[in-house]
């Protein structure tokens, strides 16, 4: 069995966490809106559980502390960009400290639908300094893998139009009015998000997956790459 390498933090460590106790695996699925992340997370969870791994899946705005507050704030018309960024960071910190770390300590596979990178990309798309938000989010653990489901804007547009049928206010960045209607704003905003995520590929060591393919093909690709973690023959 390979030696256990303790997880590290991107920046200064969270107070009071001993990372050598964290035995589980932290796997992140990142990507822009409508790229199909949650479908993949659902399938991966079933597959991993089938293989005998205990899985925790988590995602943005699901924290006990801030989830409700974020939903309420998004329903009004006063949530400004900086406040949104920090509200989501609070939500992430609560999940990291109270869900993700305890699950890793217990040896779970933690599958997370988005991580700090979406929070960072959204802040950057709204004009905030990338260095500032990277430092703010520096308390995050460095995951074992970050799978970046990458697609271009036309792919996302067709998924929204043919799938859900309507553009979402926040996914279109309508708080910033990037374009004169929902479609135009969506196109500009998602292009900014993709550019911001693309710039993180190298510094954050993203594993890029071509998400213009059908969901089944993406799932097979993810399975192949995740299996690498469990290559050591433990069962028959």
């Amino acid at each position: 069995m390979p030696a256990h390498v303790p997880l590290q933090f991107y920046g200064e460590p969270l107070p009071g966490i001993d990372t050598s106790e964290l035995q589980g695996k932290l796997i992140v699925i990142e990507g822009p809106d409508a790229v199909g992340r949650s479908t993949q997370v659902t399938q991966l969870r079933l597959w991993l559980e089938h293989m005998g791994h205990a899985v925790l899946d988590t995602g943005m705005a699901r924290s006990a502390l801030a989830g409700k507050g974020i939903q309420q704030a998004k329903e009004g018309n006063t949530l400004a960009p900086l406040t949104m960024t920090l509200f989501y960071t609070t939500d992430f910190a609560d999940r990291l400290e109270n869900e993700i770390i305890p699950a890793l300590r217990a040896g779970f596979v933690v599958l997370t639908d988005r991580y700090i990178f979406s929070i960072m990309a959204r802040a950057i798309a709204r004009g905030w300094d990338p260095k500032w938000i990277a430092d703010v989010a520096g308390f995050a653990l460095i995951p074992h893998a970050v799978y970046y489901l990458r697609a271009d804007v036309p792919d996302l547009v067709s998924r929204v139009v043919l799938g859900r049928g309507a553009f979402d206010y926040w996914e279109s960045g309508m708080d910033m009015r990037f374009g004169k209607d929902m479609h135009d704003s969506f196109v500009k905003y998602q292009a900014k998000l993709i550019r911001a995520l693309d710039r993180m590929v190298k510094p954050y060591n993203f594993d890029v997956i071509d998400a213009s393919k059908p969901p089944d093909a993406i799932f097979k690709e993810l399975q192949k790459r995740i299996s690498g973690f469990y290559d050591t023959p433990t069962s028959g």
Partner: protein
Amino acid sequence: MSLLIPNRYKGKLIVVEGIDGSGKSTQISLLSQWLRSQGVGVVFSEWNSSPLVKDTTRRGKKKAMFTPTTFSLIHATDFADRIERQIVPPLKAGAVVCADRYAYTAFARDVARGVSRTWVRNLYRFAVRPNLCFYFKVPLDVALGRILGGRDALKYYEAGMDLELSRNIEESFRIFQGRIIDEYDAMAEELGFQVIDATGSIEEQQKRMREIVTEKIGESLEHSVLKWRGGQSDAGARAAAVLR
């Protein structure tokens, strides 16, 4: 020093800092009344008062859900909402913004809770640097006496009970607020706070504040900040508008 963004707006920003029971709220309230009576347009902003964030903070406090990091982040979120909606727009319009507690509260309190100093200072890098920061310096015993004499008993997080410093809430308050005082004292020197001896009488302290305000920003108050038309006071202007 890249700590906080310089105030390039027409308006002026005055903040008060100090531990609970230092009397800073009384003083900033008296100061804003005085400024208003001079015809100055004043906007008042209080720590931990964002309507968007308050339910979350209340939930966290009620159920004792906070860690030092989430406590720090939720207060930064609250502050961000105030900056974006309550502080920067009035400053642009030329008003004098009076703030009861500012980013320095987080610098003192979060560090006393064990959060990294460089991290929390970076977190608030979006804040506008005040034109004047008054620090109400008071010995622990005086502050404690004032709080215990008032209607509110010591509160869980204000006493740092989450840090498990002591089971006795008064003892915990002493240790935690003592650490905060150390942080404030160090910052007062580093960042050039106007230190007010908060053991003096209310009148003496207010007199000193007004002198400093006049000396430091009197010129702008006279000529460049937003005024009520005809130099009327806030209430006077409103009454005039109703009678018109």
